[in-house]
């Protein structure tokens, strides 16, 4: 076997010329060439007709042909063995890598074998097939439209029936649309508020409320309204800025922070990804989805990226036990924008 049949992993054998063993041998004209040349291709019948379109194919050198045949047969044999291996692998408990590679060998062997067979031992001469006109004649189209119109005019002659039947079908179609309404609740107000309200404690994922001292300067923790841990619309970032960072509260929000702790909605105002990256030294919140960047020290104003609105801020206070509570809901609807958000 001079030629490599087909390496077990097909993707590596993608190079066409490398995988084609016979071409160099047969590329040079040999003594037998004229004897087996395609000098008289069979004339195609049926819809295919006409002379061979391209230059005649090179004849296959018999010795090269034998090699190709053996190579193809070997591919099938390797495929069979790999199939056996696949069964053994499965029976032995399975292994993803072995299964994948063996399956690739099984199918790759069959594929390469068939292609070699087709390329070298199946009729490969090019034939020309006539292309009849797709379009019908004017007369045929005219006849068709005439029939259509004739039937149609008989329908149109009963105007009352036509009108009422059309109305009934339209009403039926309309009635069919109503069940769509069952797919979801009324859209609207739920998007505009969260469970935060005056006096609601901010709790961590484990449900524990927080005191200001629980958060180190430069620290951040994700919190929810008490009783709504995990609520998809209410994750909130509680951030304690470093002592030397110049926090600039928005006008009217001077009393919304406690002990240097500020709370913003964790949902990006762009498409609602959790704004999880807190760059503590620069005081920036970055959304890992689309890189919207918010300035924590300046009311979470968007300073970069596609987000167009500040993160909504949650007014904070302390309850009688010293735990951090909200004093109202967020300053704005949280998360991504929608048509009537501002109404």
């Amino acid at each position, binding site marked *: 076997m001079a030629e490599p049949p087909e390496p077990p992993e*097909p993707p590596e054998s993608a190079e066409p010329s490398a995988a084609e063993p016979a071409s160099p041998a047969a590329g040079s004209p040999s003594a037998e060439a004229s004897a087996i040349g395609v000098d008289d291709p069979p004339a195609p019948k049926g819809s295919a007709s006409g002379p061979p379109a391209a230059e005649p194919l090179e004849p296959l050198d018999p010795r090269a042909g034998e090699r190709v045949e053996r190579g193809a047969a070997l591919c099938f044999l390797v495929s069979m063995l790999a199939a056996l291996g696949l069964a053994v692998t499965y029976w032995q408990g399975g292994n993803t890598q072995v299964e*994948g590679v063996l399956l690739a060998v099984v199918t790759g062997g069959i*594929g390469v074998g068939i292609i070699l067979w087709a390329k070298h031992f199946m009729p490969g001469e090019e034939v020309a097939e006539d*292309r009849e006109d797709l379009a019908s004649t004017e007369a045929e189209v005219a006849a068709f439209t005439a029939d259509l119109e004739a039937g149609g005019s008989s329908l149109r002659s009963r105007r009352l029936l036509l009108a009422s039947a059309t109305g009934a079908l339209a009403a039926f179609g309309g009635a069919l649309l109503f069940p769509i309404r069952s797919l979801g609740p009324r859209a609207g107000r739920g998007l505009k508020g969260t469970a935060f309200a005056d006096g609601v404690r901010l709790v961590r994922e484990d449900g524990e409320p927080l005191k200001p001292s629980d958060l180190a300067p430069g620290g951040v923790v994700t919190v929810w309204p008490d009783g709504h841990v995990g609520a998809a619309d209410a994750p909130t970032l509680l951030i304690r800025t470093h002592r030397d960072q110049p926090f600039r509260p928005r006008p009217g929000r001077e009393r919304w922070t406690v002990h240097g702790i500020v709370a913003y909605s964790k949902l990006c105002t762009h498409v609602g990804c959790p704004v999880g990256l807190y760059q503590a030294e620069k005081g920036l919140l970055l959304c890992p989805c689309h890189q919207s960047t918010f300035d924590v020290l300046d009311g979470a104003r968007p300073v970069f990226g596609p987000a167009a609105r500040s993160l909504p801020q949650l007014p904070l206070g302390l309850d009688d036990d010293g735990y951090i509570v909200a004093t109202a809901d967020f300053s704005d609807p949280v998360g991504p924008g929608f048509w009537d958000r501002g109404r």
Partner: protein
Amino acid sequence: MLSRRVARWIDDRLGTAQFARTVLNKVFPDHWSFMIGELALYCFVILLLTGVYLTFFFDPSANETVYRGSYEALQGVEMTEAYRSALELSFDVRAGLVMRQMHHWAALLFLAAIVVHLGRVFFTGAFRRPREINWMIGVTLLILAMFNGFAGYSLLDDQLSGTGLRIAYSITLSIPLVGTWIASLLFGGEFPGPDIIERLYVIHILLIPAAITVLLTAHLAILVRQKHTQFPGPGRTEDNVVGTRMWPTYAAKALGLFFLVTAVVAFLGGVFQINPIWIYGPFDPAEVSAASQPDWYMGWLDGALRIMPGWEVRAFGFEIPNPFFPGVLLAGLTFTALYAWPFLEARVTGDDAVHHLVDRPRQRPVRTALGVACLAFYLVCFLGGASDVLAQTFGLSVNAVLWTFRFAVILLPIVSGWFTYRLCKELSARDGVPTASRVTWREIPARLRHGTARRSTPADAEA
């Protein structure tokens, strides 16, 4: 002979012998680039086969459960049944992981083959009369395939897929007037919605595969009816098809190609780990990982979302949110333009003749240049979807990378389009064949408005 008896038996009942013979002798042009669509077809077959296997084990349920499978690093973690069953499929079902990975790789390759096929058809002008219908079916197949791919990887309810769903929800929400309603009806309420996984499951395994199967059948039936296009060459005319007969050579090659595609998918599925959901963890709406990207075919949309500057429209308390423009408008424009292209081109060139001989791209400088410019635009969008990973990999600033893309998304299409136009002209001149384009850039708007009085003949178009 047995075959004759069987043929006789069937023909007595259906009378198909003559038709079947025509099929056997059907001629297929032998150019390799005409087989790229077949790659997509075979990927789809593999998707169906592996997908059916996966449905036996996957449970599309949002019910909460606690993991007790064999993967240690998630022991006792709360998750949904969907995610748990995907883990079980990966770790505890024999041959489950290789099937899952083959399914995912086949999906990526399915879309890749469709896109390359679309490019081949576009750049050779194979969409022209009489093939406009098949072009539009093809575009529909592309949309369905993209959507089904997204639906598929969104089912597993891992952190990455949940993030993708959240973005899809927000884009839906951004549609003016009806967005909140559509989002609510689709998800069964506010995100994450109790029903979305079950609904996506039905869409993913039933509705869209059925639609793809029907349209694919139509795509192929029309192709058989209209016969293939072919490149010009000796003996090749508008009135014939030159190639190999269906039986046995082309059938064998097609079958062999199917096995080879399966081999590629099996190799990838066994050797390259894809979508390691056990690393991503169960979805939690308050969490996200750095470098969250969609699968490649959605990358251009994700990149467009990033590249879009932070603008939105607000008036009288109503607003058109920022993601509407890249997420809905751009996608809508993209597919509308694809649907309309054969008709736009015919209107601009005034060439509505029947074409069975395809163009070499260089012969059509304007079309080729526009195509390259569009490819450049989507490529920049696509790379924009990886802006953070590019920044990290090359030690650059995310902001600088994104600003680069914001300029590149405008400049690169212009530059590459102009360069392609010059190149086509140059190459055609070297060939000694004048280009077929008799339209200059400047004329295009007027021709789009008024059409053109000149109706060219096939001979004109071939010139």
